[in-house]
Protein backbone atom coordinates (compact mmCIF):
# COMPACT_ATOMS: atom_id res chain seq x y z
CA UNK A 1 0.00 0.00 0.00
CA UNK A 2 2.58 2.52 1.01
CA UNK A 3 5.79 3.11 -0.85
CA UNK A 4 7.76 3.88 2.29
CA UNK A 5 6.36 1.16 4.45
CA UNK A 6 9.67 -0.72 4.54
CA UNK A 7 11.71 2.23 5.78
CA UNK A 8 10.85 1.75 9.44
CA UNK A 9 12.06 -1.23 11.38
CA UNK A 10 8.97 -2.82 12.90
CA UNK A 11 9.12 -3.09 16.65
CA UNK A 12 11.72 -0.45 17.27
CA UNK A 13 10.98 2.48 15.04
CA UNK A 14 13.38 5.33 15.68
CA UNK A 15 12.24 8.15 13.47
CA UNK A 16 14.96 10.60 14.46
CA UNK A 17 18.09 8.53 14.33
CA UNK A 18 18.55 8.07 10.62
CA UNK A 19 17.88 11.59 9.45
CA UNK A 20 19.46 14.03 11.81
CA UNK A 21 22.66 14.18 13.83
CA UNK A 22 21.82 13.17 17.36
CA UNK A 23 22.13 15.56 20.22
CA UNK A 24 25.55 15.19 21.75
CA UNK A 25 25.97 13.90 25.28
CA UNK A 26 27.57 17.17 26.24
CA UNK A 27 24.96 19.39 24.65
CA UNK A 28 24.94 22.49 26.87
CA UNK A 29 21.17 22.53 26.88
CA UNK A 30 21.19 19.28 28.86
CA UNK A 31 22.89 20.91 31.81
CA UNK A 32 20.44 21.39 34.65
CA UNK A 33 21.85 24.42 36.38
CA UNK A 34 18.80 25.37 38.37
CA UNK A 35 18.71 21.98 40.10
CA UNK A 36 22.32 22.12 41.18
CA UNK A 37 21.78 25.70 42.32
CA UNK A 38 18.82 24.56 44.37
CA UNK A 39 20.85 21.81 46.00
CA UNK A 40 23.60 24.27 46.84
CA UNK A 41 21.14 26.76 48.30
CA UNK A 42 19.53 24.03 50.40
CA UNK A 43 22.89 22.89 51.69
CA UNK A 44 23.70 26.45 52.68
CA UNK A 45 20.38 26.97 54.44
CA UNK A 46 20.65 23.71 56.36
CA UNK A 47 24.22 24.52 57.37
CA UNK A 48 23.16 27.96 58.60
CA UNK A 49 20.20 26.57 60.50
CA UNK A 50 22.38 23.91 62.09
CA UNK A 51 24.30 26.58 63.98
CA UNK A 52 21.16 28.15 65.44
CA UNK A 53 20.69 26.00 68.55
CA UNK A 54 24.14 27.00 69.71
CA UNK A 55 23.00 30.63 69.69
CA UNK A 56 19.44 30.40 70.93
CA UNK A 57 18.20 30.31 74.49
CA UNK A 58 16.08 27.39 75.59
CA UNK A 59 12.72 28.97 75.02
CA UNK A 60 13.59 30.31 71.59
CA UNK A 61 14.90 26.91 70.71
CA UNK A 62 11.52 25.46 71.63
CA UNK A 63 9.88 27.88 69.22
CA UNK A 64 12.46 27.03 66.56
CA UNK A 65 11.78 23.32 67.03
CA UNK A 66 8.07 23.88 66.69
CA UNK A 67 8.83 25.82 63.53
CA UNK A 68 10.80 22.86 62.21
CA UNK A 69 7.87 20.55 62.92
CA UNK A 70 5.64 22.95 60.99
CA UNK A 71 8.15 22.90 58.15
CA UNK A 72 8.32 19.11 58.04
CA UNK A 73 4.55 18.88 57.99
CA UNK A 74 4.33 21.48 55.24
CA UNK A 75 7.04 19.84 53.13
CA UNK A 76 5.21 16.53 53.41
CA UNK A 77 1.88 18.09 52.57
CA UNK A 78 3.39 20.00 49.67
CA UNK A 79 4.56 16.80 47.98
CA UNK A 80 1.05 15.46 47.72
CA UNK A 81 -0.93 18.66 47.42
CA UNK A 82 1.51 21.02 45.76
CA UNK A 83 3.33 18.76 43.35
CA UNK A 84 0.71 16.03 43.20
CA UNK A 85 -2.25 18.39 42.90
CA UNK A 86 -4.25 16.41 45.45
CA UNK A 87 -5.34 18.93 48.08
CA UNK A 88 -5.24 17.09 51.38
CA UNK A 89 -7.19 18.45 54.30
CA UNK A 90 -6.45 15.39 56.36
CA UNK A 91 -2.73 15.27 56.91
CA UNK A 92 -3.42 15.03 60.63
CA UNK A 93 -4.15 11.36 59.93
CA UNK A 94 -0.56 10.71 58.86
CA UNK A 95 1.04 12.91 61.49
CA UNK A 96 -1.11 11.09 64.01
CA UNK A 97 -0.13 7.66 62.75
CA UNK A 98 3.52 8.61 63.18
CA UNK A 99 2.93 10.01 66.66
CA UNK A 100 0.84 7.10 67.87
CA UNK A 101 3.00 4.38 66.34
CA UNK A 102 5.95 5.84 68.17
CA UNK A 103 4.06 6.24 71.44
CA UNK A 104 2.45 2.82 71.34
CA UNK A 105 5.59 0.89 70.42
CA UNK A 106 7.68 2.81 72.92
CA UNK A 107 5.33 2.67 75.88
CA UNK A 108 3.91 -0.81 75.38
CA UNK A 109 6.90 -2.59 73.88
CA UNK A 110 9.95 -0.44 74.57
CA UNK A 111 10.80 -0.16 70.88
CA UNK A 112 13.38 2.44 69.87
CA UNK A 113 11.83 5.54 68.28
CA UNK A 114 14.15 5.19 65.31
CA UNK A 115 12.55 1.87 64.46
CA UNK A 116 9.09 3.22 65.24
CA UNK A 117 9.71 6.02 62.78
CA UNK A 118 10.20 3.48 60.01
CA UNK A 119 7.23 1.41 61.13
CA UNK A 120 5.07 4.52 61.39
CA UNK A 121 6.17 5.74 57.98
CA UNK A 122 5.26 2.38 56.49
CA UNK A 123 1.83 2.27 58.12
CA UNK A 124 1.22 5.89 57.19
CA UNK A 125 2.19 5.32 53.58
CA UNK A 126 -0.08 2.31 53.41
CA UNK A 127 -3.02 4.14 54.98
CA UNK A 128 -2.50 7.18 52.79
CA UNK A 129 -2.24 5.09 49.68
CA UNK A 130 -5.44 3.27 50.51
CA UNK A 131 -7.34 6.50 51.23
CA UNK A 132 -6.03 8.19 48.12
CA UNK A 133 -6.76 5.12 46.04
CA UNK A 134 -10.37 5.12 47.19
CA UNK A 135 -10.75 8.86 46.59
CA UNK A 136 -9.14 8.71 43.16
CA UNK A 137 -10.86 5.51 42.23
CA UNK A 138 -14.14 7.31 42.78
CA UNK A 139 -12.82 10.32 40.90
CA UNK A 140 -12.90 12.83 43.72
CA UNK A 141 -11.01 16.03 43.01
CA UNK A 142 -10.62 19.56 44.28
CA UNK A 143 -12.81 20.46 47.23
CA UNK A 144 -14.35 17.00 47.28
CA UNK A 145 -10.97 15.36 47.61
CA UNK A 146 -10.14 17.78 50.42
CA UNK A 147 -13.37 17.05 52.26
CA UNK A 148 -12.92 13.30 51.87
CA UNK A 149 -9.41 13.40 53.33
CA UNK A 150 -10.75 15.57 56.11
CA UNK A 151 -13.44 13.00 56.84
CA UNK A 152 -10.89 10.19 56.96
CA UNK A 153 -8.74 12.14 59.42
CA UNK A 154 -11.82 12.65 61.59
CA UNK A 155 -12.56 8.94 61.45
CA UNK A 156 -8.99 8.24 62.63
CA UNK A 157 -9.48 10.69 65.49
CA UNK A 158 -12.77 9.12 66.52
CA UNK A 159 -11.36 5.63 66.14
CA UNK A 160 -8.41 6.34 68.42
CA UNK A 161 -10.79 7.79 70.99
CA UNK A 162 -12.67 4.51 70.93
CA UNK A 163 -9.80 2.03 70.91
CA UNK A 164 -8.70 0.64 74.26
CA UNK A 165 -5.25 -0.43 73.13
CA UNK A 166 -4.55 3.17 72.13
CA UNK A 167 -5.83 4.33 75.54
CA UNK A 168 -8.79 6.21 74.11
CA UNK A 169 -8.70 9.86 75.17
CA UNK A 170 -6.03 9.32 77.79
CA UNK A 171 -3.02 9.48 75.48
CA UNK A 172 0.51 8.20 76.03
CA UNK A 173 3.27 9.58 78.23
CA UNK A 174 6.81 8.90 77.10
CA UNK A 175 8.70 7.44 80.06
CA UNK A 176 11.49 9.77 81.20
CA UNK A 177 15.02 8.40 81.29
CA UNK A 178 17.65 9.48 83.75
CA UNK A 179 20.32 10.10 81.15
CA UNK A 180 20.68 10.91 77.47
CA UNK A 181 20.02 8.05 75.11
CA UNK A 182 20.47 8.09 71.38
CA UNK A 183 18.65 4.81 70.94
CA UNK A 184 15.63 6.12 72.82
CA UNK A 185 15.96 9.60 71.30
CA UNK A 186 15.95 11.30 74.65
CA UNK A 187 18.27 14.09 75.64
CA UNK A 188 18.67 16.74 78.26
CA UNK A 189 16.02 19.44 78.02
CA UNK A 190 17.24 22.20 75.73
CA UNK A 191 19.84 19.98 74.12
CA UNK A 192 20.68 21.11 70.58
CA UNK A 193 20.15 17.53 69.45
CA UNK A 194 16.42 18.18 69.79
CA UNK A 195 16.88 20.78 67.09
CA UNK A 196 19.25 18.81 64.91
CA UNK A 197 17.04 15.73 64.61
CA UNK A 198 14.07 17.54 63.05
CA UNK A 199 16.50 19.64 61.04
CA UNK A 200 17.98 16.46 59.62
CA UNK A 201 14.50 15.18 58.84
CA UNK A 202 13.63 18.48 57.22
CA UNK A 203 16.84 18.41 55.18
CA UNK A 204 15.95 14.90 54.07
CA UNK A 205 12.55 16.22 53.04
CA UNK A 206 13.89 19.23 51.16
CA UNK A 207 16.62 17.37 49.32
CA UNK A 208 14.19 14.53 48.77
CA UNK A 209 11.66 16.95 47.31
CA UNK A 210 14.17 18.26 44.78
CA UNK A 211 15.29 14.76 43.87
CA UNK A 212 11.72 13.56 43.58
CA UNK A 213 10.57 16.52 41.54
CA UNK A 214 13.34 15.83 39.06
CA UNK A 215 12.86 12.10 38.99
CA UNK A 216 10.77 10.26 36.47
CA UNK A 217 7.97 9.68 38.99
CA UNK A 218 8.06 13.32 40.08
CA UNK A 219 7.94 14.58 36.53
CA UNK A 220 5.07 12.24 35.79
CA UNK A 221 3.00 13.31 38.74
CA UNK A 222 3.45 16.98 37.91
CA UNK A 223 2.34 16.22 34.38
CA UNK A 224 -0.69 14.47 35.80
CA UNK A 225 -1.40 17.46 38.02
CA UNK A 226 -1.23 19.81 35.06
CA UNK A 227 -3.31 17.67 32.72
CA UNK A 228 -4.41 14.22 33.68
CA UNK A 229 -5.80 13.25 30.28
CA UNK A 230 -2.77 14.39 28.32
CA UNK A 231 -0.49 12.62 30.77
CA UNK A 232 -2.38 9.36 30.41
CA UNK A 233 -2.23 9.63 26.64
CA UNK A 234 1.56 9.80 26.93
CA UNK A 235 1.62 6.42 28.60
CA UNK A 236 1.76 7.64 32.20
CA UNK A 237 0.03 5.35 34.67
CA UNK A 238 -1.86 8.14 36.38
CA UNK A 239 -3.01 6.24 39.44
CA UNK A 240 0.33 4.57 40.07
CA UNK A 241 2.38 7.77 40.15
CA UNK A 242 -0.20 9.64 42.15
CA UNK A 243 -0.16 6.89 44.74
CA UNK A 244 3.64 6.86 44.81
CA UNK A 245 3.54 10.57 45.59
CA UNK A 246 0.89 10.14 48.26
CA UNK A 247 2.89 7.34 49.87
CA UNK A 248 6.02 9.49 50.03
CA UNK A 249 4.09 12.45 51.38
CA UNK A 250 2.36 10.43 54.08
CA UNK A 251 5.46 8.53 55.10
CA UNK A 252 7.39 11.77 55.46
CA UNK A 253 4.61 13.51 57.38
CA UNK A 254 4.54 10.68 59.88
CA UNK A 255 8.17 11.40 60.79
CA UNK A 256 7.03 14.76 62.16
CA UNK A 257 4.50 12.93 64.31
CA UNK A 258 7.06 10.52 65.71
CA UNK A 259 9.40 13.36 66.59
CA UNK A 260 6.50 15.27 68.15
CA UNK A 261 5.88 12.44 70.60
CA UNK A 262 9.56 12.23 71.45
CA UNK A 263 9.98 15.93 71.96
CA UNK A 264 6.77 16.69 73.82
CA UNK A 265 6.74 13.47 75.89
CA UNK A 266 3.00 13.17 75.63
CA UNK A 267 0.56 12.60 72.85
CA UNK A 268 -3.22 12.43 72.94
CA UNK A 269 -5.85 12.07 70.22
CA UNK A 270 -6.34 15.80 69.65
CA UNK A 271 -2.62 16.57 69.47
CA UNK A 272 -2.13 13.80 66.94
CA UNK A 273 -5.29 13.65 64.87
CA UNK A 274 -7.07 16.97 65.54
CA UNK A 275 -8.05 19.03 62.54
CA UNK A 276 -5.72 21.77 63.78
CA UNK A 277 -2.81 19.55 62.77
CA UNK A 278 -4.06 19.42 59.20
CA UNK A 279 -4.31 23.20 59.23
CA UNK A 280 -0.75 23.40 60.54
CA UNK A 281 0.38 21.39 57.54
CA UNK A 282 -1.48 23.51 55.02
CA UNK A 283 -1.01 27.06 56.26
CA UNK A 284 2.82 27.27 56.11
CA UNK A 285 2.88 25.71 52.65
CA UNK A 286 0.26 28.06 51.31
CA UNK A 287 1.77 31.13 52.92
CA UNK A 288 5.18 30.24 51.57
CA UNK A 289 4.00 29.08 48.17
CA UNK A 290 2.72 25.64 47.28
CA UNK A 291 4.34 23.50 44.63
CA UNK A 292 7.72 25.11 45.30
CA UNK A 293 10.71 23.67 47.11
CA UNK A 294 11.31 26.63 49.37
CA UNK A 295 7.70 27.69 49.92
CA UNK A 296 6.92 25.40 52.86
CA UNK A 297 10.16 26.37 54.55
CA UNK A 298 9.53 30.10 54.13
CA UNK A 299 5.95 29.68 55.29
CA UNK A 300 6.98 27.75 58.38
CA UNK A 301 9.56 30.40 59.25
CA UNK A 302 6.76 32.97 59.18
CA UNK A 303 3.98 30.97 60.83
CA UNK A 304 6.06 29.14 63.43
CA UNK A 305 7.27 32.15 65.38
CA UNK A 306 4.41 34.51 64.40
CA UNK A 307 2.01 33.84 67.24
CA UNK A 308 4.97 33.77 69.57
CA UNK A 309 6.05 37.22 68.43
CA UNK A 310 2.60 38.66 68.87
CA UNK A 311 2.29 37.05 72.27
CA UNK A 312 5.71 38.46 73.21
CA UNK A 313 4.77 41.95 72.19
CA UNK A 314 1.49 41.75 74.06
CA UNK A 315 3.15 40.38 77.14
CA UNK A 316 5.26 43.48 77.43
CA UNK A 317 3.54 46.01 75.16
CA UNK A 318 4.94 49.37 74.15
CA UNK A 319 3.11 52.21 75.89
CA UNK A 320 0.93 53.05 72.93
CA UNK A 321 -0.48 49.53 72.99
CA UNK A 322 -0.64 49.13 76.75
CA UNK A 323 -4.43 49.06 76.71
CA UNK A 324 -4.23 45.75 74.87
CA UNK A 325 -2.35 44.00 77.62
CA UNK A 326 -4.23 41.11 79.12
CA UNK A 327 -6.90 41.03 76.42
CA UNK A 328 -7.35 37.38 75.58
CA UNK A 329 -7.64 36.30 71.99
CA UNK A 330 -5.85 39.26 70.42
CA UNK A 331 -2.75 37.36 69.37
CA UNK A 332 -4.70 34.73 67.49
CA UNK A 333 -6.90 37.42 65.97
CA UNK A 334 -3.86 39.25 64.59
CA UNK A 335 -2.41 35.97 63.38
CA UNK A 336 -5.67 35.20 61.58
CA UNK A 337 -5.83 38.64 60.01
CA UNK A 338 -2.28 38.26 58.73
CA UNK A 339 -3.14 34.88 57.26
CA UNK A 340 -6.07 36.40 55.40
CA UNK A 341 -4.00 39.32 54.12
CA UNK A 342 -1.16 37.14 52.85
CA UNK A 343 -3.50 34.82 51.00
CA UNK A 344 -5.33 37.81 49.59
CA UNK A 345 -2.38 39.85 48.39
CA UNK A 346 0.17 37.14 47.72
CA UNK A 347 -1.90 34.34 46.22
CA UNK A 348 1.19 32.41 45.18
CA UNK A 349 2.61 32.66 48.65
CA UNK A 350 5.52 34.75 49.83
CA UNK A 351 8.21 32.73 48.10
CA UNK A 352 6.17 32.08 44.96
CA UNK A 353 5.32 35.76 44.56
CA UNK A 354 8.86 36.94 45.20
CA UNK A 355 10.27 34.37 42.79
CA UNK A 356 7.92 35.47 40.04
CA UNK A 357 8.81 39.10 40.59
CA UNK A 358 12.49 38.20 40.61
CA UNK A 359 12.17 36.35 37.31
CA UNK A 360 10.25 38.98 35.42
Amino acid sequence: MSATSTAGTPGTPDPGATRRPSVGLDDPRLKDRSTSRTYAALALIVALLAVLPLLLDEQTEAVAIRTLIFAILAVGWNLMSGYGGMFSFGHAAFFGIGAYTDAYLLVEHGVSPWISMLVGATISAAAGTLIAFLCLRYRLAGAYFALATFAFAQVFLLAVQNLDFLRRTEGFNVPLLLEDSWSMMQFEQGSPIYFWIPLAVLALGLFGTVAFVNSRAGQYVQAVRDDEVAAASLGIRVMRYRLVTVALSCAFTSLAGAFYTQYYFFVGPEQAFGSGVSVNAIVPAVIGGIGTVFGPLVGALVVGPLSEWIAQILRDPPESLAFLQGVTGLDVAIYAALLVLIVLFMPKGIYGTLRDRFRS
Partner: protein
Amino acid sequence: MTLLHVESLTKTFAGLTAVRDVDVDVTDGEFLGIVGPNGAGKTTLFSLLAGQLEPTRGRVVFDGQDITGWGPAKVASVGLVRTFQLMRPFESMSVLDNVAIAAHGRHRSRKAARRAALEVIDRVQLDRYVHSPSGSLPTAGLKRLELARALALEPRLLLLDEVLAGLVPAERAPMIELLREIHADGMTVMFVEHIMAAVMALSERLLVMAEGAELALGDPHEVITDPRVVEAYLGEDYA
Protein backbone atom coordinates in the same frame (compact mmCIF):
# COMPACT_ATOMS: atom_id res chain seq x y z
CA MET B 1 1.20 -5.95 7.20
CA THR B 2 -1.81 -4.75 9.20
CA LEU B 3 -0.78 -2.63 12.16
CA LEU B 4 -4.26 -1.68 13.35
CA HIS B 5 -7.42 -3.67 12.90
CA VAL B 6 -10.72 -2.05 13.94
CA GLU B 7 -13.86 -4.14 13.92
CA SER B 8 -17.43 -2.82 14.20
CA LEU B 9 -16.36 -0.24 16.73
CA THR B 10 -19.36 1.50 18.32
CA LYS B 11 -19.83 4.05 21.08
CA THR B 12 -23.14 5.28 22.43
CA PHE B 13 -23.69 8.05 24.97
CA ALA B 14 -27.07 7.93 26.69
CA GLY B 15 -28.80 6.62 23.58
CA LEU B 16 -26.82 8.81 21.20
CA THR B 17 -24.49 6.91 18.89
CA ALA B 18 -21.27 8.85 18.40
CA VAL B 19 -19.40 6.12 16.55
CA ARG B 20 -21.25 3.40 14.68
CA ASP B 21 -19.82 0.13 13.38
CA VAL B 22 -16.50 1.45 12.14
CA ASP B 23 -14.33 -1.16 10.42
CA VAL B 24 -10.91 -0.10 9.26
CA ASP B 25 -7.47 -1.65 8.85
CA VAL B 26 -4.31 0.42 8.87
CA THR B 27 -1.20 -0.94 7.26
CA ASP B 28 2.24 -0.45 8.70
CA GLY B 29 3.75 2.72 7.29
CA GLU B 30 0.50 4.04 5.89
CA PHE B 31 -0.81 7.63 6.09
CA LEU B 32 -4.58 7.48 6.56
CA GLY B 33 -6.55 10.72 6.36
CA ILE B 34 -9.88 11.02 8.14
CA VAL B 35 -12.38 13.72 7.29
CA GLY B 36 -15.99 14.40 8.06
CA PRO B 37 -18.29 17.18 9.14
CA ASN B 38 -18.29 18.41 12.73
CA GLY B 39 -19.80 15.80 15.01
CA ALA B 40 -19.00 12.99 12.62
CA GLY B 41 -17.27 11.08 15.44
CA LYS B 42 -13.65 11.51 14.35
CA THR B 43 -12.31 12.62 17.71
CA THR B 44 -14.46 10.06 19.49
CA LEU B 45 -12.94 7.42 17.26
CA PHE B 46 -9.47 8.55 18.35
CA SER B 47 -10.55 8.48 21.97
CA LEU B 48 -11.79 4.93 21.52
CA LEU B 49 -8.56 3.82 19.85
CA ALA B 50 -6.31 5.56 22.36
CA GLY B 51 -8.24 4.27 25.36
CA GLN B 52 -9.75 7.48 26.72
CA LEU B 53 -13.15 5.94 26.09
CA GLU B 54 -14.31 2.39 26.37
CA PRO B 55 -16.22 1.18 23.29
CA THR B 56 -19.80 0.06 23.71
CA ARG B 57 -19.18 -2.66 21.16
CA GLY B 58 -16.46 -3.77 18.76
CA ARG B 59 -12.82 -4.69 18.83
CA VAL B 60 -9.48 -2.93 18.44
CA VAL B 61 -6.45 -5.03 17.53
CA PHE B 62 -3.07 -3.32 17.49
CA ASP B 63 -0.04 -5.16 16.16
CA GLY B 64 -1.78 -8.47 16.61
CA GLN B 65 -2.80 -7.72 20.18
CA ASP B 66 -6.39 -7.15 21.26
CA ILE B 67 -6.28 -3.81 23.07
CA THR B 68 -10.04 -3.29 23.38
CA GLY B 69 -10.86 -1.66 26.71
CA TRP B 70 -7.28 -0.94 27.68
CA GLY B 71 -6.61 2.30 29.53
CA PRO B 72 -4.89 5.20 27.73
CA ALA B 73 -1.54 4.73 29.47
CA LYS B 74 -1.33 1.07 28.53
CA VAL B 75 -2.32 1.78 24.95
CA ALA B 76 0.30 4.50 24.66
CA SER B 77 2.97 2.24 26.08
CA VAL B 78 2.53 -0.29 23.26
CA GLY B 79 3.05 2.46 20.70
CA LEU B 80 -0.37 3.86 19.85
CA VAL B 81 -0.18 7.57 20.62
CA ARG B 82 -2.56 10.44 19.99
CA THR B 83 -2.42 14.20 20.04
CA PHE B 84 -5.23 16.47 21.14
CA GLN B 85 -7.09 19.00 19.10
CA LEU B 86 -7.18 21.37 22.09
CA MET B 87 -3.56 21.67 23.06
CA ARG B 88 -2.84 20.34 26.49
CA PRO B 89 0.68 21.31 27.54
CA PHE B 90 1.85 20.74 31.12
CA GLU B 91 1.76 24.41 31.83
CA SER B 92 3.99 24.54 34.86
CA MET B 93 6.86 22.99 32.92
CA SER B 94 9.34 24.02 30.29
CA VAL B 95 9.11 22.78 26.73
CA LEU B 96 12.02 20.45 27.36
CA ASP B 97 10.38 18.92 30.41
CA ASN B 98 7.11 18.50 28.56
CA VAL B 99 8.82 16.43 25.91
CA ALA B 100 11.16 14.69 28.33
CA ILE B 101 8.16 13.37 30.21
CA ALA B 102 7.05 11.59 27.08
CA ALA B 103 10.60 10.43 26.34
CA HIS B 104 10.73 8.89 29.82
CA GLY B 105 8.40 6.25 28.44
CA ARG B 106 11.34 4.94 26.41
CA HIS B 107 14.31 6.02 28.52
CA ARG B 108 14.51 5.35 32.22
CA SER B 109 17.32 7.72 33.08
CA ARG B 110 16.52 11.38 33.21
CA LYS B 111 19.59 12.26 31.24
CA ALA B 112 18.77 9.92 28.37
CA ALA B 113 15.17 11.09 28.35
CA ARG B 114 16.18 14.72 28.16
CA ARG B 115 18.62 13.95 25.41
CA ALA B 116 16.01 12.11 23.39
CA ALA B 117 13.61 14.97 24.03
CA LEU B 118 16.10 17.50 22.71
CA GLU B 119 16.45 15.48 19.54
CA VAL B 120 12.72 15.57 19.00
CA ILE B 121 12.57 19.26 19.84
CA ASP B 122 15.26 19.97 17.27
CA ARG B 123 13.37 17.89 14.82
CA VAL B 124 10.09 19.79 15.21
CA GLN B 125 12.07 23.04 15.20
CA LEU B 126 11.13 24.16 18.69
CA ASP B 127 14.80 24.53 19.60
CA ARG B 128 14.37 28.25 20.22
CA TYR B 129 11.99 27.47 23.08
CA VAL B 130 13.78 24.63 24.86
CA HIS B 131 13.73 26.24 28.31
CA SER B 132 10.66 28.44 27.86
CA PRO B 133 7.62 27.77 29.99
CA SER B 134 5.25 25.80 27.79
CA GLY B 135 2.36 28.08 28.66
CA SER B 136 4.10 30.97 26.90
CA LEU B 137 4.27 29.30 23.47
CA PRO B 138 2.23 30.70 20.58
CA THR B 139 -0.39 28.43 19.01
CA ALA B 140 1.93 27.16 16.32
CA GLY B 141 4.49 26.31 18.97
CA LEU B 142 1.90 24.50 21.06
CA LYS B 143 0.88 22.42 18.06
CA ARG B 144 4.48 21.44 17.51
CA LEU B 145 4.89 20.70 21.21
CA GLU B 146 1.87 18.43 21.06
CA LEU B 147 3.47 16.66 18.12
CA ALA B 148 6.88 16.54 19.79
CA ARG B 149 5.51 14.90 22.91
CA ALA B 150 3.83 12.23 20.83
CA LEU B 151 6.98 11.63 18.79
CA ALA B 152 9.13 11.40 21.91
CA LEU B 153 7.18 8.30 22.83
CA GLU B 154 8.52 6.75 19.62
CA PRO B 155 5.10 5.49 18.61
CA ARG B 156 4.24 2.83 16.07
CA LEU B 157 1.01 4.54 15.16
CA LEU B 158 0.42 8.26 15.53
CA LEU B 159 -3.10 9.66 15.78
CA LEU B 160 -3.00 13.33 14.82
CA ASP B 161 -6.11 15.31 15.74
CA GLU B 162 -6.28 18.57 13.76
CA VAL B 163 -2.66 19.58 14.20
CA LEU B 164 -3.19 22.34 11.63
CA ALA B 165 -6.28 23.90 13.16
CA GLY B 166 -5.72 27.41 14.40
CA LEU B 167 -2.59 27.94 12.32
CA VAL B 168 -2.45 30.78 9.82
CA PRO B 169 -1.76 29.64 6.23
CA ALA B 170 1.87 30.70 6.44
CA GLU B 171 2.37 28.38 9.41
CA ARG B 172 0.67 25.46 7.71
CA ALA B 173 3.17 24.75 4.97
CA PRO B 174 6.17 24.01 7.23
CA MET B 175 3.94 21.87 9.45
CA ILE B 176 2.74 19.87 6.45
CA GLU B 177 6.35 19.47 5.38
CA LEU B 178 7.25 18.22 8.86
CA LEU B 179 4.45 15.67 8.79
CA ARG B 180 5.61 14.52 5.38
CA GLU B 181 9.12 14.00 6.72
CA ILE B 182 7.90 12.07 9.73
CA HIS B 183 5.87 9.85 7.50
CA ALA B 184 8.76 9.42 5.10
CA ASP B 185 10.82 8.09 8.00
CA GLY B 186 8.34 5.25 8.28
CA MET B 187 5.80 6.47 10.80
CA THR B 188 2.27 5.14 10.44
CA VAL B 189 -0.21 8.01 10.80
CA MET B 190 -3.94 8.48 11.18
CA PHE B 191 -4.72 12.08 10.42
CA VAL B 192 -7.94 13.90 11.32
CA GLU B 193 -8.08 17.25 9.61
CA HIS B 194 -10.49 19.80 8.25
CA ILE B 195 -8.09 21.46 5.86
CA MET B 196 -8.68 19.47 2.72
CA ALA B 197 -5.60 20.65 0.89
CA ALA B 198 -3.37 19.19 3.56
CA VAL B 199 -5.39 15.99 3.73
CA MET B 200 -5.17 15.53 -0.01
CA ALA B 201 -1.46 16.31 -0.04
CA LEU B 202 -0.53 13.81 2.65
CA SER B 203 -3.04 10.98 2.67
CA GLU B 204 -2.48 7.70 0.93
CA ARG B 205 -5.98 6.59 1.79
CA LEU B 206 -8.94 8.60 3.00
CA LEU B 207 -11.70 7.68 5.43
CA VAL B 208 -14.82 9.82 5.34
CA MET B 209 -17.10 9.72 8.36
CA ALA B 210 -20.60 11.11 8.87
CA GLU B 211 -22.87 10.78 11.87
CA GLY B 212 -20.48 8.34 13.48
CA ALA B 213 -20.41 5.92 10.60
CA GLU B 214 -17.98 5.13 7.85
CA LEU B 215 -19.17 6.82 4.65
CA ALA B 216 -16.35 5.96 2.29
CA LEU B 217 -12.83 4.57 2.45
CA GLY B 218 -10.24 4.36 -0.29
CA ASP B 219 -8.08 6.37 -2.63
CA PRO B 220 -8.43 10.04 -1.65
CA HIS B 221 -9.21 11.30 -5.13
CA GLU B 222 -11.83 8.66 -5.74
CA VAL B 223 -13.42 9.07 -2.35
CA ILE B 224 -13.69 12.83 -2.56
CA THR B 225 -15.77 12.65 -5.69
CA ASP B 226 -18.08 9.98 -4.31
CA PRO B 227 -21.61 11.41 -4.52
CA ARG B 228 -22.49 10.36 -0.96
CA VAL B 229 -19.46 12.25 0.30
CA VAL B 230 -20.33 15.33 -1.67
CA GLU B 231 -23.82 15.19 -0.27
CA ALA B 232 -22.64 14.84 3.29
CA TYR B 233 -20.43 17.83 2.85
CA LEU B 234 -23.05 19.97 1.16
CA GLY B 235 -22.90 23.36 2.79
CA GLU B 236 -19.77 22.40 4.72
CA ASP B 237 -16.85 24.66 4.35
CA TYR B 238 -13.87 22.46 3.52
CA ALA B 239 -11.57 24.88 1.88
